[in-house]
């Protein structure tokens, strides 16, 4: 999952569809994000590559819509509803996730375990 600036990124991703939970006026997804191109990447506890400025899932509320949909802590979000998340500021990422007129967000996330699984299954052939 290492990326070289300027080169295309390839990753094994999982599609996660989160249905936002309506709580009065608010729409909740039930997780927290960290990271962004305007943030200090060395403080990201979840990234493998400490220069990775991507958006990571730092916390998933128990029983919330995100956990139910399969999101896990430490996932890196690559896309939200088609919008790219690998090269965005923190606030831009947050905004793409919290649009009020969208009830569902479809994420593409990647995690180390996915890569390992695919690599292992490829090695068996």
């Amino acid at each position: 999952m290492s990326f070289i600036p300027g080169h295309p990124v390839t990753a094994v991703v999982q599609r996660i569809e989160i249905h936002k939970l309506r709580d009065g006026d608010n729409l909740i997804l039930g997780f927290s994000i960290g990271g962004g191109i305007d943030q200090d990447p060395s403080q990201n506890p979840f990234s493998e590559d400490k220069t990775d400025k991507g958006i990571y899932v730092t916390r998933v509320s128990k029983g919330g819509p995100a956990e139910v949909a399969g999101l896990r802590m430490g996932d890196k979000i690559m896309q939200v509803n088609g919008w790219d998340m690998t090269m965005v500021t923190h606030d831009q990422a947050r905004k793409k996730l919290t649009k009020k007129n969208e009830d569902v967000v479809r994420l593409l996330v990647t995690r180390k375990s996915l890569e390992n699984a695919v690599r292992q299954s490829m090695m068996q052939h």
Partner: protein
Amino acid sequence: MNNTKNQRDSDIQKKIDYEIRMREGACKLLAACSQRDQALEASKSLLTCNARIMAYMSELQRMKEAQVMQRVARRSSDAGPMDDRSPCKAKVAISDLRIPLMWKDTEYFKNKGELHRCAVFCLLQLGGEIFDTDMVMVDRTLTDICFDNTIVFNEASPGFELRVELYSCCSEEDYSAGSTPRKLASKLSTSLGRSSGKKMRGALEPGACSPTSNGGGAAILLPVPSVPGPKYHLLAHTTLNLSHVQDSFRTHDFTITGNEECSYWLPLYGGVCCRLAAQPHCMTQQMMSGCLRVKLGGEPQGWTNVYGVLKGTNLFCYHQKEDMEANVEPVLTIGINKETRIRAAEKDPHSKAQNICITNQYGGEEVMHTLAADSREDTQHWMEAFWQQFYDMSQWRQCCDDLMKIELPSPRKPAIVTPKQGSLYHEMVIDTSDDIGTVTDILARRIEEFDLRSQLGSPPHWMSLFDEDPPRSPHSHQHLPPHSPSPRLHSRCHRTPGLLSSNASLTSDSDSPTSVRPCFRQAWSPDSNSSSGRFRPRTLSLDAKLSTLRGRGYGGFRCNCQPPTASSGSPRPTQIALSCSSSTSSSSSSEGSNSQESDLGFSRPSSARRSLRNLRAKLDPRNWLQSQV
């Protein structure tokens, strides 16, 4: 014999009198109280008192009948087998009652009207003892009815029958139906709308709703004297016995009386889960104890004196009686269970007593222990005890395999009041992955950072803006980066305050809401006069530490604030503050300054606190921001 009978009679009579007094009190309370909750509780006590009176009266009846039968039997000198063995009694406990509900989707989506609420409680009867659980309000936000009470019945026999009954009472509107004359009531019910008319009718005719009322087993209930106020109706019942006893949770069938037309109806799934445990006395008490001689080792003639105690599935042999009281390990433990075979042997003509041979199967091997008592009577007593033990075990079956735990509710525990038994999504539990190690690591790192910063030299030039405020008296949390989460406008207020992370830092904020805070300043100007003392990391209680850290999430208490870029000169902190206080901070990104909201979204909204925290978050360059979505 007569004396004990009379004693028992008067005992029961006393109990009946007591319950009658309680019933009168409950009736008076019911008539007098105005609040719905009180009325429901009083009605519940009334129902329980009635049930108990009924039970005691029937017990009296039974005793009188037994007396008569005995007299008859004696007269005909038909001495039945007098040495009938009776099994030992047991303590039976039922706990963690949970009754699942099955709401129809129409309840959720189409039912825009009032919430259909019912007050429910369970009545449990075993033998002559009747207990009621606490009352629970049930509406469609609940998926299960849970009763937290643990109910313990003493002195249950192996053939016990534990009757569980669920009573419910509709609690939506105030149907003081008892006072409405019937003609008027029927007129009302026909002229009202269909559903409310049904409810009225249901409330007026308590018996009509259950077509199978009193069809099967008689309900424990006495015909209640007409008392105004809410009336409970039997919604479901079941009977549990020895075969249902298990050391874990089990689901049992619930027979539902009543149907959808009744006002007190709840959509029960049809089962009840509970943990029914039994501790027979033979497992918990010493059934027999005395001095024995045991052949230990391989020597044919070596007898050792021991003090034997028969308890549960073991015969413990201690060196002496005092050892047992002092909880010293026994010298020898012989298992006495269903597989054991015990024999009295006449082998030894020299000794006065018989030998007792106990044979057990350990694995594939047979192990035999030989014991001897001091005299013939002792031997006889021991054999009797062993036989009684075997009989008890055969009667109590699975309860004698292992001792089941019964937790007695401690009377001093304060009732944990949950404000609402919320649905799944109302309880968002904060991640508890932060353990002590992480906490101390994080704290240590914080301290290091402060030390680093203190060596940085002069504070940033915009600090001068905050100089006017006098340093505040130290709160204990000043040294922590005070970035209590800033709530967004659509803050999630439903999180229970108990889960709030940053109570620690919130208290420090509460004092001067308007000005930008010097406690913030202290994080930044370590060489200001009075701050050096405050800079020392205070020792928070571990609870406060954990709660502050938990709320901030992993590593999250490093707010990121990029320092205003050098090109923009002296930034306009007041503007930043203003823009922070509105949560739609899109404007600030265009300003070039960054409006990250270190947003962990837990705390109580307060615009001043928000602006303060945002400011702190912005101005700390070493933080890695996290946002809650």
